[in-house]
């Protein structure tokens, strides 16, 4: 990867990485640090990273940074991200899902985000998170069930 490839990665993936980090860490400032660190690591390792693998590399570093950062701070609860937008078609669903996401542990949350935000397959998520594909499948299914149960319970209340 050359300098031009790196700069193209910044333009293409910085926003997505920041959104992922925001949801993982729950803090925009932490997410900013995660993104900066991820791109710095990519720059240092640019000779070893193929341009086609740069996105996965960035999310791998961001995932580790986010989880480490989260564990280091020993947070007991997830702070809902300050940035909240609502889709006009279903304004409540987005808010409910954000709350549901906050109930997950940091690893399950990262798996759901990698799946829903970035559309990675199970095997790709396994490579990024250094888990086995079976583990990814189990953790993701468990997270989906939690999210679904949360959504159903809220709907029942409403």
């Amino acid at each position, binding site marked *: 990867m*050359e300098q031009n490839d790196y700069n193209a990665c910044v333009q293409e993936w910085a926003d997505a990485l*920041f959104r992922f980090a925001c949801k993982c860490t729950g803090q925009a400032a932490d997410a*900013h640090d995660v*993104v*900066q660190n991820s791109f710095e690591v990519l720059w240092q390792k640019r000779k070893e990273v193929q341009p086609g693998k740069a996105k996965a590399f960035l999310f791998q570093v961001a995932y580790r940074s986010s989880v480490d950062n989260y564990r280091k701070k020993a947070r007991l609860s997830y702070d809902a991200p300050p940035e909240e937008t609502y889709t006009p078609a279903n304004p409540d669903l987005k808010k409910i899902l954000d709350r549901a996401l906050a109930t997950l542990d940091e690893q399950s949350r990262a798996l759901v985000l990698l799946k829903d*935000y970035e559309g990675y397959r199970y095997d790709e998520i396994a490579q990024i998170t250094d888990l086995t594909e079976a583990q990814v499948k189990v953790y993701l299914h468990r997270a989906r069930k939690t999210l679904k149960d949360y959504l159903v319970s809220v709907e029942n209340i409403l």
Partner: protein
Amino acid sequence: MVTWDNYEEYIIMHADGELSPEEETALQAFIAVHPELKSELDAYSAVKLTPDTAVVFANKESLLKTAPAGRVIGFPQWRKYSIAAGVALLLGLSLYKWNATPSVTETVAKNDTVRQINNTLPTPTQNNITNATNPKIENAVTTNEIKPQPVITKQHNTTTAPMPHEATAHIAVKQNNATIASNHENTAVVRLAEQVDKLPIEENKMMAISAEPTQQNAATLAYTAVVEEPAKQQKSFLDQLPIDELKKQGIESMAAAVANTYQHINNLKHNLSGKTLTIQVEKRKLILSF
């Protein structure tokens, strides 16, 4: 095959888009048979998160790299390179000094050598000249010994086939020239080269020598002229110094020692020419070619 035990896994994989076409067909067939599972399928499909594109990284420019990749050098690495550069600079300066024009002291040393030889060289009428330090010089002197012509002829007849008298003398001179060329830095030989011209060879032999001067011989004579000129200057310079003879001899000895050292350094320089010196600091290499 979709069953009551695994249908939920199939539904989640359906929501994640991980089912193969065959598995998708099997799930739809199972739900068609059990329509009460349709609501569960919709619920899992609803818990799909969508990214908020309004959230962006504010300062992308801070992440961009504008400097050439090879010029980003951290200070600790720079320090290592500076050490390597310092070593290379020292080596370079040393070689430069060695390559420089000989100093006054070195010139004095050469001139002293010439003077000493001038004092010890025999007159053309002397027959026995020996130089224990240089066998080649001894050979050269022997062939230049001034003897009656029959003796010279006899000497060469022992090693060569009988030939005309002129040719034999010519070979003797050529041998002298070859020896001079190989020792052209030795002033004693230079002096002997001059003696060749003083040999009482017959006029026609001298003409033969003059008609075919070799390039080496010309270079040797030129060298003699260059060496002798500063020798005269040095002699007058030493004579003008208000020091006694013993100190002058000491200076001459020192000059000779310096000249010897200069010769050693010259040899070292010749040995180094064409060689490369590689200094490696971690993964970086500094290659010096001489």
